[in-house]
């Protein structure tokens, strides 16, 4: 009797597995998206996700009940508990927005193969290779580069007017951590500027926090005092833009427009739009198709976007120049990390011809993948999350923060 029961149970389990593996189309009214956020709308980072979710919800015509947003979930077991709560609520796609959520979301994904789990900025989905666990990011380095072009043109304008603070143009950058995502960001920004203003230099000051308005403001002020002609930042508060507006120094922003608070100094801002990813996941689910294990949003998918250029602060012709570079990206004739161009990317005076990047995360963080090929560094191609962490000439790190 026991044996028969066991056999039956095994059969039921197998059938259960089979039905979950063969992806069935899900009707639109049965879609339910659960979103786990590290903070809430007071952080520009999380706000960007909330806006993305709402945009996707509207575009696809989902009802309020079909989207559940859970705020203020720390990077701990609570993320796992919350994910399981969302499974109980009947969510079939569960998304978490913070880097440290990843291993806890993965644990939930292993226990619930019938539910899709997606994670922004994560690095392990491509090595875990579970059909229901996904990473996503965007080629934001392209957006940074475009913003850098706007910065470079502004510097040229200041230079021609003879108003440079030093002999050569100098930019300041407020970064959160000395981490690949930030390093990839400031390097692409610098290269964008350098592409139009070849003698530009940059100083980077790290704050050691993703959100610390006071620190970010102080860092920006310190950079201005060091003689920077223009400031940009990769941190989530209004600290740096405010410092720039107060000092009348042009600012290239991030995560969205700061035009309203900084009408005289805001030039342009790049950001990741997450709506295309949410729409993509839901559409795949409705079509019964698999969701990519590792998905990189691009300018073409609408994931990397720039705000309108503020004509009052930007150099003349900035918007047109950005469009021209964008077209070159689309055509494949220009690459952000162009290692073939003369005097563009150098390390210790020598051109960058080879670099082993840490793409597959392991406990020792060993570099494992050659990223330089065909004359450029292949960022976000082997996995969605950035892995460019080369320290190139022209950029001086004033401190380091891990």
């Amino acid at each position, binding site marked *: 009797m026991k044996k028969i029961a066991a056999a039956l149970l095994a059969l039921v389990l197998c059938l259960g597995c089979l039905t979950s593996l063969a992806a069935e189309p899900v009707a639109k009214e049965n879609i339910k998206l659960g979103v786990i956020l590290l903070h809430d709308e007071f952080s520009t980072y999380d706000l960007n996700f909330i806006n993305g979710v709402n945009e996707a919800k509207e575009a696809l015509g989902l009802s309020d009940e079909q989207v559940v947003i859970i705020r203020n979930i*720390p990077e*701990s077991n609570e993320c796992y508990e919350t994910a399981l709560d969302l499974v109980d609520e009947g969510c079939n796609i569960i998304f978490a927005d913070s*880097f*440290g959520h990843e*291993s806890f979301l993965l644990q939930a994904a292993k226990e619930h193969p019938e539910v899709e789990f997606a994670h922004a900025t994560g690095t392990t989905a491509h090595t875990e290779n579970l059909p229901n666990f996904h990473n996503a990011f965007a080629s934001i380095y392209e957006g940074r580069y475009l913003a850098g072009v706007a910065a470079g043109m502004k510097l040229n304008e200041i230079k021609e007017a003879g108003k440079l603070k030093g002999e050569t143009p100098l930019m300041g950058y407020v970064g959160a*951590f000395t*981490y690949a995502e930030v390093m990839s960001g400031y390097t692409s920004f610098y290269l964008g500027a350098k592409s139009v203003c070849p003698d530009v230099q940059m100083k980077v000051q790290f704050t050691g926090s993703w959100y610390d308005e006071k620190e970010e403001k102080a860092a920006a002020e310190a950079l201005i005092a060091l003689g920077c002609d223009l400031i940009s930042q990769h941190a989530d508060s209004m600290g740096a833009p405010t410092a720039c507006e107060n000092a009348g120094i042009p600012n290239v922003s991030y995560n969205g427009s700061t035009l309203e608070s900084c009408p005289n100094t805001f030039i342009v801002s790049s950001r990741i739009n997450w709506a295309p990813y949410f729409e993509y996941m839901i559409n795949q689910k409705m079509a019964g198709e698999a969701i990519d294990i590792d998905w990189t949003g691009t300018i073409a998918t609408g994931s990397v976007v720039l705000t309108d250029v503020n004509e009052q602060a930007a150099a003349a012709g900035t918007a047109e120049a950005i469009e021209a570079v964008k077209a070159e990206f689309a055509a494949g004739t220009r690459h952000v990390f162009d290692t073939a161009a003369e005097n563009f990317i150098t390390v210790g005076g020598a051109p960058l011809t080879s670099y082993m990047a840490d793409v597959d995360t392991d406990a020792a963080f060993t570099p494992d993948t050659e990223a330089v090929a065909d004359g450029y560094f292949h960022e976000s191609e082997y996995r969605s999350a950035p892995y460019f962490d080369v320290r190139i000439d022209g950029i001086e790190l004033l401190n380091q923060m891990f």
Partner: protein
Amino acid sequence: MTANHTPQVREPLVHLSRRTEFSPLRAWGVRLAALVLGLIVCGLAAFLLIEKLQQNPGRIGDFYYAFIKGSFGTSRKLWKMLKNLSILLCIALALTPAFRMRFWNTGAEGQTLMGVLGAIAVDFYFGGKWPEALLIPVMLLAAIIFGGVWGLIPALFKARFNTNETLFTLMMNYVATFVVSYFLVIWVPSGSSSLAKLKYGKLPSVVNDYFLIILIALLLTIGLYIYLNYSKHGYEISVVGESVRTAQYVGISVPKVILRTMLLSGMLCGLTGFLIGSGLDQTITTESVGGQGFTAIMVAWMGNFNPLMMILTSGLIQILNQGAAQISQDFNVSGALPDVIVGIMLFFVIGCEFFINYQLHFRRAQSKEAVR
């Protein structure tokens, strides 16, 4: 308070006197009334703050139901509430011996975090190399030592130099945070400072992942109740708390009691750190304790430093927390709303203790009494 009650002196509108007789039944009546009043004010605040409620006032039922749903909606939520209650209770229990001694230990956050660090450090270096049956006890031991040392340092200064323990223990919280940051930089060379969940060193699952934690909290509550009320140590703690001079007079070595009690306090925080590190997270961030070390101070005070009462106060706070989070989820409102709701409720719950302990005398009533 020796006010001169002669008619020439203008009397204050209200004055206070300590209640001498107040039956426990009436006291509980006042507490219940405060809870109900708090819920009503929460409802009013919700109307002001939640647009969806303004558009559809009928959903006020959902609003109150969320308090129940948050902790009792599914069996998973119930277990989670019991587990959260247990962790918070353990930290509050750890504080209690020190508090009974009037040693204001505000460092439970840091002592617990150091406990997590001790457990995770052992896990990080020896996980997978040692069998789990050895690894987990060593993690426990390391957690207790780390927490104990972190509690002992301010006690040493207090016993030796009579430093202010409130400021000292508070400062140690920040030091603990930076010690954890320091190790995260070493352990995670990529620079993200985010240590992925470790594969080893998980407290075994008995019944479910939470049962063992709940059981330990229960045993700790009973154990501490007995220790404080029926042991010589417990008596010494009470005497030192009542009066240091009395303690010296009857021959109790005050520095010894301070050191011993703070060591115990820190070790119990360390034990809780082990429950968080090994029982739940298997990783560490600077936020691993998440402010519970401070909430526990409130739990201990509200529970009158009585371990059995603290089960109730800890439960109340967890039910409020989970209910408020449920409201934020159901109404899709900002993460600040739960804080507002919990704040209002605690205002009433704590505030009512004032009216239980003191009586208000208004001027007119007072003058009548004077005539009499």
